[in-house]
């Protein structure tokens, strides 16, 4: 039922919007790999994928190198999760810090 108090957002429109978003996200999910692989260049066929862990003390570096040496798919996931997680965390943290300086961080008018 369309809400007469708020004629702008009817359930039909919301459904269309959600369906559009879902379709676009699915398309992006299916097509993004092709794009990145297409732009990725030649695979590193001559590289020997072994990290030298002999001189490493137990810690984060050793853990990362061990994952790299044992399972590259897991390493790929580790890279993705680390970068995305750090990006989100640092993004929100930096945002808070800049806000504390006193800079007005409201919406901008798009003046040219």
């Amino acid at each position: 039922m369309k809400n007469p108090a708020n004629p702008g957002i009817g359930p039909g429109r919301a459904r269309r919007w959600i369906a559009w978003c879902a379709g676009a996200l699915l398309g992006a999910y299916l097509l993004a790999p092709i794009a990145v692989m297409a732009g990725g260049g030649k695979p590193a066929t001559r590289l020997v994928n072994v990290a030298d862990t002999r001189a490493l003390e137990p810690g984060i570096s050793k853990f990362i190198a061990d994952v790299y040496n044992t399972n590259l798919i897991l390493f790929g996931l580790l890279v993705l999760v680390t970068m995305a997680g750090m990006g989100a965390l640092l993004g929100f943290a930096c945002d808070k810090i800049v806000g504390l300086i006193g800079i007005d961080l409201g919406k901008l008018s798009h003046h040219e």
Partner: protein
Amino acid sequence: MDVFDIYLPIAGIEFNVLLLLLIGFTVGVCGGFFGIGGAWIVTPALNIFGFPMPYAIGTDLAHMGGKSIVSTIRHGKFGNVDVRLGLAMIVGTTCGMELGARLVLYLERLGLAEEYIRKAYVVFLALIGGYVLYDYLTHMRRVKAASTGKEQPESRHTFAQKLQRLHLPPMISFPASGIRCSLWLPVLVGLTTGIVASVLGVGGGFIRMPALIYLVGCPTLVAVGTDLFEVMITGAYGAFTYGIKGRVELIAAVWMLLGAAIGAQMGTVAVKYVRGYSIRLLFAVTIFIACISVLLKQLELNVASSVMIVSAGIIISLVIMGLLVRGVVVEQRALKSKRGGSS
């Protein structure tokens, strides 16, 4: 300075942490300000300081994904990210990149790839830089004519406005950009920029940003934010795909991301204090420097090319920082005088 050296087990080298932070910071500032990934600064920067090239590309792409999240969050809060437009474009971009890759393979079979692609790269950079600069100068002439009271020339429709009028269903509104056009417009623009980016072997941020302005008709700030949204998606997948190929030095990427996050935040906030056309002018200058750098590479002056692009990156980020500091000081003074006036 040895105290800041860390061992990177995957690349098998020792590298200075401060250098990683500096490179990350520099490209973060430029990326947040222009809406680009900045691979053309990071890859030669890492490489000239001794980072092996195969790892330089993967490590750059990995940190780019994280850095773009930082910028996209801030640009999103500024209202500069048109998610609808970004998603529509990414469909075209991905198809275009696949087509571009096939075109490269075809040119390689003919033995023409190297020759044609390098020339096309230089021509493309010169064309984009030239057009953006021409647009800036035209705009400034109009502003000057208006301020001196001279009669302004009749304002004509831009090429983007003409494209927006093409009635090719489905027509769709992009509220964040303030435009309504056929869905095919951003898809086709994405497709074209995707082909070009793929053929040139670059991420494509420096092509997409002006394409969003001059072909789709976005305001400059929305073009910057929306482009970063796309870089975020492709960068995240790039981090994964290069990771499984074993080409990412994760420790280096983490240090770079720490610097880039701060830089990206500053570069993004700096757009608040400049007009869209100022961003376009700085962008044109950056593109010309990149063009000269590619020319130097063609002349096999690789070290000169890398040094030039890295120095240019540092200088441009300093200029952006200067704009940010000036903007903050002016804003704070205005706030103080407002408070003083009201009390």
